[in-house]
């Protein structure tokens, strides 16, 4: 039987300190107060003084409450029985069914040896041309959706999850509105995907410390499944809440902030989670799709900024559509040369002309005379926006590429596209000049 400590020295924010010995860094403890029992995790050791963050929050904890150390760090079950189940950030059932406390592994395990990774090679088809054609999603990619509050990012996330061909979906919800939690649960259920899904959700009303656990729990489970040769898709929404929870704890611990109050290790913390995305040499894979809401639509805010440097691109969701500028899939080069010869050239040319269109639009709004070229660009831009960019468009990649040629030839001569001649000869619609 482990020792029980009865004297809490300090309570500040969600962090309590006790005097104890033989405590391991990051070990768990149970704190029993009049409000019930909560888990807590060791986050600092200084001589005999142990600082713990209490998952359920410190409200109602008295200095005489019991602290019992468990002698191991946070663990999560990786049993197959997790499929179809809903849990809290702390790993307790949210669906009134029995807890699962076997096949446990430590969360936040070690980093994958880069030598055991392989180059991603499978495209994940989504049926959204702005993704498939312009920024292909690739198995084992880590990709956030940058957005602002109010955009349909959770709907987009759910849609991609439904259409993607994967074996297991692990959903990690952080600071989710209860409505959004229900939305995900119901959508997965209606589409018959719940039975291959595990959900860890922290809702906005849950204690903030549990928010910090969600990505680690979700990714530990995903990793275990991936090692069993499963292709796993992890959805994390919203990572900004995770970063804000980190900030809250760091400030409580009186750490020196680096940028707008966020701790100096924000990059490393985020990277350690996102880097769990992997294509294993001779095993399964983990693909991570996350949501990062940008406070004030500010791309230079520390959260999207650090995220952008970690992830392999980003989808920039704005005004209900995926913006071609700012959106990027860094892995698209791995797959878009194997789809069709014209994939890359359609991708580059259409975007370049769309950039010219935007410039013309600016000129137009300032009242300048439009040249013949400007008129062409305007017509092109409008057709591109309505036929390609709209999120309701749901067509396979090949159809989208054909559509691209059609839009180009509707509006331009061959010469004006700047495309290599051999490709023009092969793909330019024969009935157009």
């Amino acid at each position, binding site marked *: 039987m482990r020792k029980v400590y009865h004297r809490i020295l300090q309570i500040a924010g969600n962090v309590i300190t006790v005097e104890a010995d033989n405590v391991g860094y990051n*070990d768990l403890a149970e704190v029993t107060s009049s409000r019930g029992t909560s888990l807590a995790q060791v986050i600092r050791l200084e001589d005999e003084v142990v600082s713990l963050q209490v998952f359920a929050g410190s409200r109602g904890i008295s200095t005489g409450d019991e602290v019992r150390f468990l002698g191991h760090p946070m663990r999560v079950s990786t049993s197959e029985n997790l499929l179809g189940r809903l849990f809290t950030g702390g790993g307790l059932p949210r669906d009134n069914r029995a807890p699962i406390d076997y096949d446990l592994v430590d969360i936040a395990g070690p980093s994958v040896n*880069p030598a*055991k*990774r392989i180059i991603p090679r499978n495209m994940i088809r989504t049926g959204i041309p702005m993704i498939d054609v312009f920024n292909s999603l690739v198995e084992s990619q880590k990709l956030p959706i940058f957005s602002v509050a109010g955009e349909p990012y959770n709907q987009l996330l759910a849609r991609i999850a439904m259409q993607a061909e994967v074996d297991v979906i692990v959903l990690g919800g952080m600071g989710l509105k209860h409505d959004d939690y229900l939305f995900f649960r119901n959508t997965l259920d209606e589409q018959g995907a719940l039975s291959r899904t595990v959900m860890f959700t922290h809702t906005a009303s849950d204690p903030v410390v549990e928010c910090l656990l969600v990505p680690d729990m979700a990714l530990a489970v995903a990793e275990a499944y991936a090692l069993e040769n499963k292709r796993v898709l992890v959805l994390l929404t919203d990572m900004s809440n995770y970063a804000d929870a980190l900030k809250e704890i760091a400030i409580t611990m009186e750490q020196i902030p*680096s940028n707008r109050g966020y701790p100096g290790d924000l990059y490393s913390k985020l990277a350690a989670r996102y880097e769990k995305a992997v294509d294993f040499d001779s095993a399964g894979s983990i693909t991570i799709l996350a949501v990062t809401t940008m406070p004030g639509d500010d791309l230079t805010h520390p959260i999207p900024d650090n995220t952008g440097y970690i992830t392999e691109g980003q989808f920039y969701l704005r005004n209900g559509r995926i913006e071609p500028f700012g959106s990027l899939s860094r892995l698209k080069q791995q797959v878009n040369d194997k789809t069709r010869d014209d994939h890359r050239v359609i991708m580059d040319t259409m975007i370049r002309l769309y950039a010219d269109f935007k410039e013309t639009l600016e000129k137009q709004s300032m009242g300048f005379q439009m040249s013949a070229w400007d008129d062409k660009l305007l017509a092109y831009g409008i057709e591109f926006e309505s036929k390609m960019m709209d999120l309701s468009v749901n067509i396979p990649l090949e159809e989208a590429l054909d559509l691209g040629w059609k839009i180009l030839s509707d509006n331009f001569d061959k010469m004006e596209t700047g495309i290599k001649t051999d490709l023009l000869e092969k793909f330019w619609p024969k009935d157009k000049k």
Partner: protein
Amino acid sequence: MLDSNKGKIVGINGNLLTVEFETYVTQNEVAYAIAGDERLKCEVIRVRGQRADLQVFEDTVGLQVGNDVEFTDELLSVELGPGLLTMVFDGLQNPLNELAEQSGFFLKRGLYLPALDYEKKWEFTPSAKVGDNLSAGDTVGSVPEGIFEHRIMVPFSLKGQWELTEIVEKGDYKISDTVAKVANNKGETQDISMVQLWPVKVPITCYKEKLLPTKPLITQQRIIDTFFPVAVGGTFCVPGPFGAGKTVLQHALSQYAEADIVIVAACGERAGEVVEILREFPHLEDPRTGKTLMDRSIIICNTSSMPVAAREASVYTAVTLAEYYRQMGLNCLLLADSTSRWAQAMREMSGRLEEIPGEEGFPAYLESLIAGFYERAGIVELNGGGTGSVTIGGTVSPAGGNFEEPVTQGTLKVVGAFHGLSRERSNARRFPAIHPLDSWSHYTSIIESEKLETARACLRRGTEVNQMMKVVGEEGTHIDDFMIYQKSEFLDYVYLQQNTFDNVDGSTEEERQVYVFDKVIKILNTKFKQKDKDEARRLIQEFRQLFIDWNYVEMDTSEFKSFEETIDKKIAANV
């Protein structure tokens, strides 16, 4: 280990340990924290009274107050010897492939392996003779390492003059075998093997003098070689917001740059990017040697999810290996991606040490550390004659893409070339997104400065006209100005932009750059007869098309010639 210095952990905060030691400690010495059967490598980074602060190169989960710590009395060092090429190391020089063999998919905490193969035999050929007077860095013999002659040198740490007293016959030896013995006039003797240790944070300076970098390092990227050249032994930095193409550019440099040895330090960046190098380099042919790219490469890989303290060490490990090969008279190119992550690693530790923060939380000593790192580059005259060089290129990932931040600014002060990547250019898919007006280089270009000035002036004027057109509109712009704008766009499209992913266009040799640039200049200098703006635009678009197609054709082909003829005819027809 009886008389080794010991201590006990008294505090743990993240990867920072506070240790109470018994007798003495040395700043920056390596220590091991003992947790059960695991030994976790640490480095002393601050000493106060009887307590030392140590950064741990591993995750600290489960460590307890009261755990033992063993000090080693040695600074953080790397092993130098034959067999480094083709290897993939982590930031502490652990070989990753060997780690994978032992511990599988994950990096097991506390597992350290020797960097070099101590069983393999190398064919040693002596070159020094008994009685020779030697000092640190002098060659005693060599072994073939791939296509290179790997010099076995007197350990860099030996001070003063030594006389060679024994040397082995030509034959096969393991790296730890003694191949020579030296003695000095104090009667001290020293065995020389093929492997030596060197502390990573101390530059290797066993050379006569540092020379001025003057010769261009051909990177086969047109915008770099022509406009913002890099010199052999020089330094350059590539700052840019995320998504601007830093890593793609670094990959292109690592493939095409005309250096003998390329060392890639993936410091705190995505693992996926390193994996591309790891998996592709062994299959890509180096056109200059006919061997694979891997044969001339070392990869230091401490990606973002690997322990942060080892990330800090990784750039030093990389530059030390580069300096080692420089001592053999080779030209080494070190690509560090990204130095911002290295700076952030220092910021994390500084924060845990509760040092008074400088700008944006970075430690006050950041700039001097950045300067110290880049100053390790250089072309040097070796003691035995000949030269060797280390060229350093570092990417910088400025927060928010704003170059006014401490890491970018600290770097700009000390580098010889600045390749600033711009968000506007990358959004418009104009790659490489090096900004043609903001970037600069102090080194000499492969193109004569007169022609270069013509091109620069065209770009500058073109940008001005474009700005002006936004105000007065196309109709208010004079046809001559309009033509200049069209020509500057032409120059941008056919010369500055380059398709990295194309086999031909991805790399342009010096000869071809000089040749094609002449033709581009000809277009810029020609006064065409077109008086109507739409006609002018169309003509330049036609030239653009021709040049783009031309760029995709190999140089020594009849197609190349026929494109050139078409271009010449078109110019003549429109004067």
